[in-house]
Each structure stands twice: as C-alpha cells, then as structure tokens.
C-alpha cells in the first residue's frame, strides 16, 4: 500500500438528522493521489459523509482535516475540494464554456488565464467541440463531463464524486469508469467517489470503505475486500457468497474444527489475518468455544464434477435445482443431500463444449478448504 501523506482525515465524525443517525463515528484516512470509494447500500450515509467533506453539512461530533487543516470553520466556497453532483448540477442558463469558467471567474482569475485553463479542462474531458453548446444540447454523458471539467479546472486537492455514473446506461457507464481512472492518473488529484455499485468500486478504486447504517465496516483494497471480507455484511454485499452457519467445536493452533449447518463436520486450516486498518481485525473465531460463526465460499471457487473430487478438497453430493445462463458464466444451483442449497459459477470458456447440466442431475461439488472464509457473527 502507498505511503503517501494523508490528504483527508476524518476523525470519529457523527451526524444525526432528527432521530436518524446518518453517519456514526466514522474515522477514515484518505491518502494523497488515492482513488477512494465509499460503498454501501442506499441510505447508509455515503452522501452525508461526502457533503460533510464539501462543507454542506456540519458534523455533530468529530473533525475533518483536509491537508492537515481543520475544516470546522471553513465554508464550502473556501474549501480546497470540489464536487461532482449526482444530478451533475450543470448551470442550465450558461454555455459549456461558461459553466467550466464559472469557478475561476468568481475567484477573480485573470481572463486570459481563464480561457487557457477552461480550454485545457475541456480538452481533458474531450468536450472542446461542444464549448459553445448549451447544457440542454448535451447528452447525459457529456453533461457529466462538463461537471467533471468544471470541478477539475479549480485544481482542488480532493475531488468528490457522488454517484457520478448512476444516471448513465451500462455501456456508457463502463466507458466513463475507464475515463475517470485515466483522468485521475492524469491530474494526480485525490478522488473520493460515492457509489452503491460494487463493480464500479472494485474496478476503479485503490481502496474502498464499505458502509452500513452510518458506520464503516471495512476499509481495504478491492482484492482484499473481495477475498477477505471481515463480516457477514461485507461478504454478502460484495459479490455473491454462499453463507453457512457454523460452530467452532475445537481448535488446534490456527486450525479450526467446525460443525456446519448443512455441510456437517469440517476442518479448516489457519486463516490469513485481515489487513490491519480494518475494524474487527482481531481475527475470526477468536471467542471462547463453542463459538457461533459463519463460513462462506464464493460461487466461482466451487467446482462441479460428475465424480467425487480427489482428496484435500471439501466435497459434497447433490442435485441440480436450477441453472441460470449469463453468457460468460452459468450459475448452477445445487441442492445437497442434506437439503442445503449452494451455488457455483461455471465459466463458459469454449463455445461448443459448454458443460450442460440437467435439472435433477446428481453431481458433486467441491472447493479448496483454503477458499473457505471464517466470519464472526
């Protein structure tokens, strides 16, 4: 992980609206040049947290430091951050050029410099041709890029983006994801993006904070977050997951002996520790025996065979209950002999030799014991 200095420091910040606690004791350090994502379900407080960084909401408790400076007394128009709003908020009565120039004009920048910087910014987002257009003559994606250029032209220390891609269709969204990453590399500004789309967060961000009900559940890089979620919530929220209730019945060093609902007795080797800056990093199964936990395994880690798997893998017998075809993958749902349901993703690697499973067919599924996650309840 990079050792760049911290640009944004959020220190146990809380915000209540009436009886709703929108943001609950959140602490985060966002480093210089990072592409940082706030990810979570609707209403978990992402926008509120972002608006507190921009200065539109004031924290009830805690403090926010940007570049080492406490922002408590700094109004939104004096903060070294700029925001791309969810609705883009492009000024409808101004041309594209005037929209981008607005922030420089109110700052009293000399007009020669304004012209140059606006042209550069429009070039960067590939809107030079549309400079004289009115916002109503632009597509959604173009309007979004106007909002981006308008914020970037101010050369903020931090760029805040509130679900910038949610109004775009799937194809354009993918293109803009790449575009945003390219831009972030080009300008070297810290980006903080809010999203409820896990794929967006995983594909764009260096680090992701997963939020639930106003609290940060885990902060990690995309791969770490996907492969080593620290809670049932994070495991279920990011990607698909087979979750099983389990109970620790014995442990030998890091090895755990478990009684798993629907799977029976299992022995798991030691787990890799979670990254240090996540809450709940004490390590799973750290409580007294017997200890109720969850175990989890990703569908793509599960293989399906017609014969029993070779030793060393966790292996179970069942029947196909459903098959869903997604083009690149197929999801196969099995009902194990114990009645437990489990899903596996099969990659459709070749066009013709695609494995076909009939519903009701008897099969084996298996996975590596090391791919099994242990999660605290």
């Amino acid at each position, binding site marked *: 992980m990079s050792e760049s200095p911290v640009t944004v420091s959020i220190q146990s910040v809380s915000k209540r609206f009436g009886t709703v606690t929108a943001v609950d004791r959140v602490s985060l350090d966002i480093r210089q040049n990072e592409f940082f994502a706030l990810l979570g379900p609707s209403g978990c407080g992402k926008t509120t947290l972002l608006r507190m960084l*921009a200065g*539109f909401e004031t924290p009830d408790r805690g403090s926010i430091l940007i570049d080492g400076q406490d922002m408590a007394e700094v*109004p*939104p*128009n*004096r903060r070294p*951050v*700029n*925001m791309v*709003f*969810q*609705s883009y*908020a*492009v*000024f*409808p*009565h101004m041309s594209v050029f005037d929209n981008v120039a*607005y*922030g420089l004009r*109110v*700052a009293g920048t000399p007009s020669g410099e304004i012209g140059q910087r606006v042209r550069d910014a429009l070039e960067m987002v590939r809107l030079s041709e549309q400079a004289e257009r*009115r*916002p*109503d003559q632009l597509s959604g994606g173009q*309007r979004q890029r106007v*909002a981006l250029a*308008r*914020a970037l032209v*101010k050369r903020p220390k931090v760029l805040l983006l509130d679900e910038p891609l949610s109004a775009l269709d799937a194809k354009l969204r993918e293109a803009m994801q790449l575009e945003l990453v390219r831009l972030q590399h080009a300008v070297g500004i810290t980006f903080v993006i809010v999203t409820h789309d896990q794929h967006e967060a995983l594909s764009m961000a260096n680090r992701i904070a997963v939020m639930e009900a106003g609290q940060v559940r885990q902060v990690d890089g995309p791969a770490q977050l996907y492969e080593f979620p620290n809670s049932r919530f994070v495991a279920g929220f990011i990607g698909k997951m087979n979750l099983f209730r389990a109970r620790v019945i014995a442990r030998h060093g890091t090895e755990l002996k478990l009684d798993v609902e629907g799977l029976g007795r299992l022995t798991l080797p030691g787990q890799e520790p979670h990254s240090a800056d996540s809450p709940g990093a004490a390590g799973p199964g750290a409580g007294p025996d017997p200890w109720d936990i969850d175990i989890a395994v990703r569908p793509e880690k599960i293989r399906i065979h017609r014969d029993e798997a070779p030793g060393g893998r966790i292996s179970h017998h069942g029947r196909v209950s459903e098959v869903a075809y997604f083009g690149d993958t197929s999801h196969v749902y099995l009902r194990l002999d114990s009645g437990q349901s489990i899903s596996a993703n099969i990659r459709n690697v070749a066009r013709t030799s695609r494995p076909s499973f009939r519903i009701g067919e008897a099969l084996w599924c298996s996975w590596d014991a090391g791919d099994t996650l242990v999660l605290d309840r």
Partner: protein
Amino acid sequence: MTAPVRRPHGSPRNLIGPLDYTRRWWMRFLVAATFLALYAPILTLIAYSFNDSRRNIMWRGFTLKYYEKAWNNDSLIDAFVNSLSIAVFSTAVSTLLGVLVAIFLWRFKFPGKSAYEGFMVLPIVIPEICMGVAMMAFFARVGWPTNLTWPFNLGNIIIAHIAFSFPFVAVIVRARMVGFNRELEDAAKDLGASEWQTMRDVVLPYLKPGIVAGGLIAFTLSLDDFVITFFTAGPNTITLPVKIFSMVRFSVTPEVNAASTILIVITVIATVLAMRFQAPQDKQEG
C-alpha cells in the same frame, strides 16, 4: 397521420385515435363556439371603435375620428397617464417584494412559516370590494394627504395596487422555485461563489421566467383594476378604467371603444414582450 392504420377488427370510428380530438366534428364545433364566445365581444368592441356613428348600433363606415377625439380629450389622457404611471410603479415594487418574499419562504425555515404562506395569499382570495373598502378606510384613518401634486397624489393608489398584486408575484415565483434543483446552489458555492454571487448567477436566472410572468400579471392587474382604485382614488386621480366607467354611465360612444381598444393593445403588447423575453429561457432547462 398520412395513411390511417387499419386494424382488422376496428370499426371505421376507431380509425380516429383516442387523442385525435381535433378530428371529431363535435370537438371542432365546441372549440369554435368557445373561441367565438371569448373573442367576439372583444372584436366587436375593437371594430366599433372605427365606426363612423355616434352610437354603437349600425355600421356607418370606417373612421379614426374617435381616436382623435380621445386623443384630444384631456381628462381621458390624464387618466391614461395616471394608469400607466401607477402600473409601472406598482409593478416594479410588487415584483421586487414578491420575489423577495418567495426567496425568503424558499430559503429559510422560521416559526409560523406555513401560517405566513397562508396569510400571504389572502389578498388574492379576499373579494376586491372588501379590499377596496378596507383601503379607503385605512387611508382615511391614517389621514393620507389628498392635496399632493402629481405624481405623489397617486401614492395611495400605488400602495393599494402593490398590496393586492405582490402576492400574485410571490405565488408565481414560489411555484417556479419548487422545481429548482438545490444542487445547483450547492454547485455554485462549491465552485467558490458567495451567497450573493450564487443568488445573482444561479438562482435569479433560473427564476427569470417566473419573475417576468409575475411582473406581467402585476402590470395587467394594476392597469385594469377598477374596484380598488375606485375606492382609493381622489377627484384628481382618475385612472383609465374609472374614467371609462364614468363615460359609459352617459352612453357607450365609440370614443369609449377607442379608449378600451388602446388598453387592450397595451396589455397585448406587454404580454407578447414578456413571452418573447422568457421563451428562450425555458428551452434551456436541462
């Protein structure tokens, strides 16, 4: 629209789509009748202002002499000038006041806000005659001086007109405010604009069509108000509607028609100007 779509089981009647109202004869008839009822009296009024006859009964040929006569009628011209001055002043003040009230109601929360919003529209719903009597009583009670020189002698009428027209402006501007995306305001501040710059550069341009419409309403309301003016006007502060009324009491001459026609023309011109002014603005909303 060119070739009717034939549906296999539809009767010929069904060839007219549910929204093709204009293709039904009874609908056309209704539209024509409505327009006739609305505009026939006005067109007659205008036509007879050019009638070469002392009375509005028979058409005796075209003439402009009643316009000339109206032009030379000093008391009519005085009334006309009074009306315009009152309308201009009261429109300016009530537009300003209405916009301020609308922005205030939109921007701030304060105790009794909804009660105030309710009270604010009272002048719109109170019968005009009551407003008129109330105004007369009010000015009598405060001992408003009656011997001022022009244009100060119009002061009480202007105040009365502001009182009943600014709520219209406030209501119209407030309605426009509802559709305002508050993120626009945040965006301006985020880019470094102060409260005042945000107001000037973002909020007011957005409100412009509402302000123009409100101002236009205030102007026409003031220009043709009779009841309230009648109660507040002194002997030397006759307005055009009051003057026309007093002329009509003797007989409806083409001169009255001519004066009325001019009033109509002014109102129409003001409306057209206002629509011109706000039309391109509306297209720009994203």
